[in-house]
């Protein structure tokens, strides 16, 4: 192809692209996004999530539960008993003691049940934060996540069960069902889209999935409460008009393995602060 012909084609492509964008008023979108980003840094610099990290640290070290044991002395998050540093960015992962893949919250709940004697049923009853209450696993997850700040995300994909969790998670991400025909992909499968003024990361991409992995655990400005990825997945399924996923269930672990491994290599800067 001659150079002029090629450049005409390029111009046409550009014009077409511009035409598509012309469907939406780009000015409004750009201004909103730019303004949000300008103040994101301010919000991130002093993130109330730190208050929950402090609470989580206290809980991690305290002797608690019917067995009066501390997680710091009993719980292996994958890096050795009591080791918090770097554990978060390496989950979900395969744990040989239970022969299954667990995400961080599931592992913490497992430790609370196994070593401290808490009831899993009780923990699963009201697992998410409200204005009146922050469940202990939420603070613990926040503390453990803070222990990986500045480290590279390295969700392992060596064990066959880790690879299986990833593959199933990728499929759960795409399941279209419910009265509104939604899947995760409906909102999170394209770049540069918004719901209302909320930017939607494309979670199927390396950069996009970081937003999920880094955003949660996160301090949610709506309500001023701390939430984890367990909550985020639960509330996404609610808005997908699906039935409710089980707390710390295989499905959520699989989904998180997919999202986490997709973000592998990025530096983790959470816990987050979210709208």
């Amino acid at each position: 192809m001659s150079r002029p012909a090629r450049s005409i084609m390029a111009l046409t492509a550009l014009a077409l692209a511009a035409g598509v964008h012309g469907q939406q008023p780009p000015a409004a979108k750009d201004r909103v996004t730019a303004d949000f980003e300008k103040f994101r840094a301010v919000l991130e610099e002093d993130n109330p999530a730190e208050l929950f990290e402090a609470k989580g640290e206290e809980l991690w070290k305290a002797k608690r539960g019917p067995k009066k044991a501390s997680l710091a002395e009993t719980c292996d998050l994958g890096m050795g008993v009591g080791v918090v540093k770097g554990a978060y960015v390496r989950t979900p992962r395969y744990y040989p003691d239970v022969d299954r893949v667990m995400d961080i919250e599931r592992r913490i709940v497992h430790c609370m049940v196994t070593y401290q004697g808490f009831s899993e049923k009780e923990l699963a009853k009201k697992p998410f934060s409200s204005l009146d209450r922050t469940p202990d696993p939420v603070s613990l997850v926040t503390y453990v996540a803070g222990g990986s700040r500045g480290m590279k995300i390295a969700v392992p994909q060596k064990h066959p069960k880790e690879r299986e969790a990833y593959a199933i998670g990728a499929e759960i991400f795409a399941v279209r069902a419910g009265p509104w025909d939604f899947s995760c992909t409906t909102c999170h499968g394209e770049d540069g889209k918004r719901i209302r003024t909320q930017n939607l990361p494309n979670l199927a991409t390396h950069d996009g999935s970081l937003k999920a992995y880094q955003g949660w655990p996160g301090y949610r400005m709506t309500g001023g409460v701390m939430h984890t990825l367990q909550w985020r997945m639960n509330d996404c399924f609610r808005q997908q008009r699906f039935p409710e996923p089980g707390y710390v269930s295989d499905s959520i672990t699989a989904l998180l393995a997919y999202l986490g491994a997709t973000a592998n290599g990025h530096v983790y800067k959470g816990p987050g602060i979210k709208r």
Partner: protein
Amino acid sequence: MDHLRRMLLKGAGASGALAVALAAGLLRPSRVLAAEWNKAAFGAASVPDALKAVGASGPADSKDVAIKAPDIAENGAVVPVEVDSRIPGTTEIAVLVDKNPLPLAASFTFSNGALPSVALRLKMGKTSNVRVIAKAGGKSYATAKEVKVTIGGCGG
């Protein structure tokens, strides 16, 4: 209680009376140690009433009072606002949200080297001006900036 407290704090023989009150369990120490809280100003339902109650009626507009706040808030529950006064001798800063039911959000006094500057986060029910009053040398100066509050998220 408020009345009693004010009386105690202002009275010449306050310390003696205070000791008695404390001993009698009438007052919790925290209450006594706390500074006054300007009930009239914080309870005012309009900007003029609030300004009057903080002793800053009819402030002069000034470019030397700066507000940093978003044009559009990502979330009205947490609007980051930063305020600086470059007016020499500023001792007090008040922050108001015009359209909140109770406009006066906070007030600060600065001494012993503190710069007349504060960063804080505010709740805003709807799009409104954020108004800042700086007091210096017995005079009041004001500036305002509009912050838009919109619906975000899925709304479900």
